[in-house]
């Protein structure tokens, strides 16, 4: 009876995944996702739309620089897309 009771208790305890296992799962997920990237994308001759100026990640660098300066001066956050850096003693 005692043996059975022991077995029952062991089954009842939820298994806690170790930190190493969580990291392994995360790593596999990341690698799988990166692998999936190889099926994403286009052939060089399919870049007609992507080559347009309006499709560039930063389509207007001048607007972007002006905006960065405004928001750097007026808010507590900066950067993220580009370097946040120093640069002015803004009021």
């Amino acid at each position, binding site marked *: 009876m005692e043996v059975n009771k022991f077995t029952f208790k062991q089954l009842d305890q939820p298994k806690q995944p170790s930190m190493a296992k969580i990291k392994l799962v995360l790593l596999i997920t990341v690698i799988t996702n990166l692998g999936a990237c190889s099926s*994403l994308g286009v052939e060089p001759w399919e870049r007609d739309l992507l080559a347009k100026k309006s499709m560039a990640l930063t389509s207007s660098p001048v607007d972007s620089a*002006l905006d960065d300066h405004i928001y750097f001066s007026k*808010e*507590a956050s900066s950067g*993220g897309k580009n370097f*946040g850096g*120093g640069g*002015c*003693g803004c009021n």
Partner: protein
Amino acid sequence: MTNNKDIKALLSIAASALLGSGVATTSTVQAKEVDEWQFDGAFLLYSEVDRVTASEVILAGSRTFENDEVLNLKLTVDVLTGASANGAVAQPNAQTFTRPSGNGQYVTPAGETPLDDTFHDTRVQLNGQWTQPLAGNITGSIGGHFSKEYDYLSLGINGNLAYDFNKKNSTISMGLSYFQDTFTPEGGIPKPFSSMLVGDSSSHEWDSEFAKTRIGSSENKGTTDILIGFSQVINRRMITAFNYSYSMVDGYLTDPFKIVSVLNAEDLAQDYIYENRPDSRVKQSSFMQAKYHFDDHLFNTVVDVSYRYMWDDWDINSHTIDSRFNIPFGRASYLEPHIRYYQQSAADFFQPFIIEKQTPVSYVSADYRIGEMTAVTIGAKYGLVLNGGNELSFRLEYYRQMPTNAGLTEPETLNGLDIYPVVEAVIAQVSYSF
């Protein structure tokens, strides 16, 4: 058009001369160089209601060389005038403050947010960036930054490596930058927590008494940024980008122009003390962006949506959602509505005022820019492609900052006073690419 070409030719020669590459020796070479420079010019006016007005001019030149090397040069000049919140809280009575320079005083009427109207500064900034292909699919880039104001000097360098793979559909990049800033405010660096001297600034003792509230004439800070990025083309119509950045700032992070009101038992300001911020800050952010090109049914609109989450060791975290919709009209023009939403929490040492009897604190600032706040930008840009491919564009936006109470109990005396005033600004810009 002739004038246009003349301007471009002159700028090209000027840029070449600055680079030491020499003005072209033959007319043939000169013509070739002229063709290779591309310029972007912009004038921006940023104007807050009753506060700061900034005018900014940018001239950016870009030249691509034979082996895909790219040189970018940028000159920025801006002029700042107007009033800025000094940090003190509105009161039921008029308040007198000493200017940061120590020369003279100004009075804020009862019930109004104290603004120091002495700000006037001109800034000149130069940026240079050299980008070139290295081995295989690796691109390298290095750059420099110089910025000078009357009381501020900033020098910066940066480097970036990008690796393209999967038929250039995927790119991993890593960048490093370092900025060294020197602040030399007029009137010197105030002593943290010392009381603002208010009184007769023409008296004999004034200068020596004012000097007691100063600890030096200049301070420095260094900023190191690490940026890791990944961009991925999803399909013919969509591209995405993901960034993580880590930023360490060390040195003088206090604003020497900002003060904090000290209120007595009746909630009336008895004193104004100079603020004090920690001498280091670590900021991290994750950024993601997606761009999608719709088809004819949605007018070939390009949607650009990005989200940034920023957090730091001052307990500030922020969310930024930015979206633009580029809608083409025919072949020659486009309209681009823009909506931006920003929300930040307060720094753990932010306090709109101090109560006289409260426990002393190590750091304090009443600068609303590190307090809890929501901000919205809404506007549009209209662009027109002219003959010869030059582009003229106009941008008009409205920016509204709405500071909010981070959970502090407001004293009764201050009821009816605007402790968290809204700041409104108009952003107007004209750009020309040639």
